[in-house]
């Protein structure tokens, strides 16, 4: 079966489930926003609302034991790869039941059990981490995926690792979430050539521009790239064009974005796009609202359990500097 056939013939139920996962990410970010304002989330945090179709589409093409390296805008990356929302939210709140026991926080989540190599707090780090995971993955029949933003494509990590991965034919997929702003600065203002996918050609790496707000489009591109990686065909670069609904971080009201631009992207909210497509595929209103209800309940449970969890007790910390 070709990739196209595989995607087309897939039952709508699988997409309904993926829609539920996208919604979970959206609800998670909404809760993060609320809990931040209440002082329950500390420091800062980077919300990914608006970009949900990318991690969900990409991870739908992966096996549970494949590797994913995410970014500091990584709540969606973790949830899509399988991190439990309770453990992720508890980590955000600095609680002892967090996936890293409250040691890591929003920008540095690690969940090895679910193949999440880590979320990396510095732009570009995920690219090298996934490239390295691909070195190990090669001998394990696995694939590694790097998630990163448009800003990272101006980083040394991007250029060095694309070259490195192609020279060694590593099973890695480079997924750029191009949300058109590197922190507060428009991508086109700081990206020579303005064509992220086009940069792959210099390294002989196949690349494509993907509608990052369309779950189906992302999944289709990811399935093909993952198949190429797994069969020894080497790396692929996917430029998934998307948009963040919030500012860069909690310190950024995002006033630098023209209102018409924001309007235009909000009209193409990935959740709305997915909902319309599911209706076209014959998924009923009732089926949709059932999934939405279940997801809301799931998120509510995560909030309750995280808020009920204790903070780590410094006196009870058993940390050691080194692994034995």
């Amino acid at each position, binding site marked *: 079966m070709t990739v196209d056939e595989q995607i087309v013939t897939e039952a709508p139920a699988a997409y309904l489930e993926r829609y539920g996962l996208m919604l979970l990410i959206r609800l998670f970010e909404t809760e993060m926003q609320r809990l931040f304002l209440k002082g329950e989330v500390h420091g800062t945090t980077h919300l990914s609302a608006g970009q949900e179709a990318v991690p969900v589409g990409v991870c739908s093409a992966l096996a549970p034991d494949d*590797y994913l*390296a995410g970014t500091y805008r990584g709540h969606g990356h973790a949830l899509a790869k399988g991190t439990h929302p309770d453990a992720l939210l508890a980590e955000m709140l600095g609680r002892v039941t967090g996936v*890293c*026991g409250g*040691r*890591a926080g929003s920008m*540095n989540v*690690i*969940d*090895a*059990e679910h193949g999440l*190599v*880590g979320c*990396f*707090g*510095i732009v570009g*780090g995920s*690219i*090298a*981490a*996934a*490239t*390295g*995971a*691909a*070195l*190990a*993955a*090669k*001998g*394990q029949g696995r694939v*590694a995926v790097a998630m990163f933003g448009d800003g990272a494509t101006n980083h*040394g*990590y991007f250029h*060095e*690792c694309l*070259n*490195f991965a192609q*020279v*060694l034919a590593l099973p890695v997929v480079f997924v750029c979430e191009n949300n058109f702003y590197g922190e507060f600065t428009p991508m086109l203002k700081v990206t020579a050539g303005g064509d992220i996918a086009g940069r792959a050609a210099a390294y002989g790496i196949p690349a494509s521009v993907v509608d990052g707000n369309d779950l189906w489009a992302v999944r289709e591109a990811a399935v093909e790239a993952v198949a190429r990686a797994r069969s020894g065909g080497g790396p692929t670069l996917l430029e998934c064009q998307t948009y963040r609904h919030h500012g860069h971080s909690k310190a950024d009201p995002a006033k630098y974005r023209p209102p018409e631009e924001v309007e235009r992207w909000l009209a193409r909210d990935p959740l709305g796009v997915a909902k319309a497509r599911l209706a076209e595929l014959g998924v009923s209103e009732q089926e949709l609202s059932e999934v939405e209800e279940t997801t809301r309940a799931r998120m509510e449970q995560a909030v309750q359990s995280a808020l009920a969890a204790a903070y780590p007790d410094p006196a009870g910390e058993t*940390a050691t*500097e*080194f*692994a*034995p």
Partner: protein
Amino acid sequence: MSAGAALEFRVAIREAIVEEMERDESVVFFGEDIAAEQGGVFAVTPGIQERFGTERVFDTPISELAITGAAFGAAVTGLRPIIEIMFGDFMGLAMDSLINQSAKYWYLSREQRSVPLVVRSAVGGGGRFGAIHSQTHATWFQGVPGLKIAFPSSPAEAKGLLKAAIRDDNPVIFLEHKRLYSVKAQAPAPGEVLPLGQARVARPGRDLTIVSAGKGVPDALEAAGQLARDDRIEAEVIDLRTLRPLDIDAVLASVARTNRMLAVEEGPATGGWAAGLLGIVAEHGLHDLDDVWLLSTDELPIPYSPTLEDAFIPGAAAIASAVRERAGVVVGR
């Protein structure tokens, strides 16, 4: 190689890599030119790729960010990479993945995964390589919890410490002083693995303690020989072996015997390991101290010209005269 036979430092490194790659299939080795026929710019690793194949041993692009970043990613997903960053000076390019990723992973992940990784580099002056191919990068990393830093002083030490570093489940920065590569000395007992974090008494003595690491140890031993012969001063020489963890107990035990300590570092005093060591010894061993001081370099980049470079680096003669001067010995009496 049997114990007692002479072993060259660069061959000791090679043997350690080969033996550990034979012992454990998850050990891989990569870097710039390491698999090339010569085996790197200092001819340390020829023949290793032929022995273990291109999947486990391979040359990389000149991409220090990618090499160290990929080594980190591989280390947390099942491999045990040894990488070579050709000159320690190039570690400036490699710091992000070592400091922000490798060093913190064990802790941040709440012990989900450790990072078994060795980063080998040639360090140190005296080779006329100039200011940015002669530095010793240990102190750039010394203040980073989660990293180990090994700095061997002899062929036997190099082999035993590198074998330990490869078996260790933590990221280890491994320094090879380039003026030691051609040193030949007694080989270690077969299979010997030295502990990381335990200093050794390289020479016992009662009058003062000279502490150093790497090339500073043979220099201190030579100086100690001169002082014993010419001045009847018996210096104890402590080889730190690792700068992190730092074996404070061994240093304090020596100072308790000698009451005097000189720390010798090929690098500036400000921010150096020797200055840090003096502080810790003062904190914990003040009651044992009659005198404590350090010999380091000027607060300048390492010069190129032979006359300037030789005067810059604290060698055996400088160590011996530093001791004589401090002890009030009249030279040529």
